[in-house]
């Protein structure tokens, strides 16, 4: 076992885990955050994508020890933290745009898609369709046919640039 110090969605915690345990399983089983999904378990589908130190990674390919000292953002950390008790939680503009534009159907690919979109829009606030396709090429979706996802990302880019100007 190894003790790793990991900051997940802003909260630092110390976890005792086998060093080769996949970050995906650490998040789901040890941190009890089941928003991160497993699709292929082989780096092909992006369902398990999270941000590690700001970079998009497939958590099924990251051994726990490589996340020691890292700051990880999962889908649970994307929305601004829920306001006072009783108030409705707000979605992040990216989530809101996926929701409004049919970017999510069954939802399995959605956490990874949202984080890949987050990473993409950090790099390219006004992405071209080609940049969107390339940025999301590692995220597979078997429901939407992708067009609605691309539209959701374009809408999210507009929403975010409007907010920041």
């Amino acid at each position, binding site marked *: 076992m*190894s003790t790793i110090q990991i900051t997940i969605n802003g909260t630092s915690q110390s976890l005792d885990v*086998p*060093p*080769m*345990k*996949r970050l995906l*399983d650490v998040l789901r089983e040890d941190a009890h955050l089941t928003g991160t999904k497993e699709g292929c*378990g*082989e*780096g*092909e589908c*992006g369902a398990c*994508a999270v941000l590690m130190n700001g*970079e*998009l*990674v*497939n958590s*099924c*390919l*990251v*051994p726990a*020890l*490589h996340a*020691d000292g890292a700051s990880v953002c999962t889908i649970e950390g994307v929305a601004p933290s829920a306001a006072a008790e009783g108030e409705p939680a707000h979605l992040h503009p990216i989530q809101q745009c996926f929701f409004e534009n049919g970017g999510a159907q069954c939802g399995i690919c959605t956490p990874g898609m949202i984080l*890949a979109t987050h*990473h*993409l829009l950090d790099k390219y606030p006004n992405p071209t369709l080609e940049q969107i*396709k*390339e*940025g999301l*090429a*590692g*995220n597979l979706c078997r429901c939407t046919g992708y067009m609605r996802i691309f539209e959701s990302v374009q809408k999210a880019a507009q929403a975010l640039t409007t907010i920041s100007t």
Partner: protein
Amino acid sequence: MRSDVTQYELTAPTTLAAVLAQLAAEPGKHTPIAGGTELMVALGVGRLAAKSLLSINHLKELRFIRVDDDAIHIGAGTTFTDIRRNADIARDLPLLASSASWTGSVANQNRGTLGGNICNASPAADTPPALLAYGATVTLISTNGTRTVPYTEFHLGYKRTALRPDELLHTITVPRTFAGWKQHIRKVGTRNAQAISKTALACLAKLDGETIAEIRIGAASLADRPLRCTGIEAALTGLSIAKADLEATVRAGRAALAFEAKPIDDIRSTGRYRSIVAANLLEEFLRSLVL
């Protein structure tokens, strides 16, 4: 079947010297892990034979891009994303920049390293053809010091390399003396992104008027290892690309390729298909020289 992760050890010595000391103390016992985009896949499907892993992922000593007058020196721990973001590589080594840009997805490029791509030693890997065409050298390091060998001497056979059990790949050195050369690279796979190639060709040529003065070709999946195509190079050196000669030159290139290529059959393609596609890629390059 998924592996039982509790059966595996992974440690992360804080310095390169400490990793090398451990490799030397128990040769063959430990397997280095960099980005893990090969080894973690093997773990996931229950095929990771190595039980003791030594992380080199965090070693800053292996993650650098240094430019001097004649060459660009790239640390083995440099990720594909690092390569894509580097302006010197984009300007001087476009074939390497392109190959990094289509190696897996963004998430894989953020973790996967150049050293891992080379040491994994797949004949289909994306960066070796470019490195072979550029005439790269590789520097290997152990507690006994370093040795530098031409990259053409690194791959010895299917998944066999010149690395000794106590050695790590440290630096890949690529000459940056190709100003004025024609450069071309193309990969053929099932889709543009994240598909291991069926075949790929990286080509460089220096023209003297309408004569091919020098030509360098690196190929993926045309042999049991990444291949520098010296036979095709010899056949094409000195040939003319003038209008009247082009068809004969193309025929000579295709014939030399058919002779030199010994592609493998595997799940991604047949050897026969690979040879034909590679010949088409070579022809595409030769015709592009005329423009």
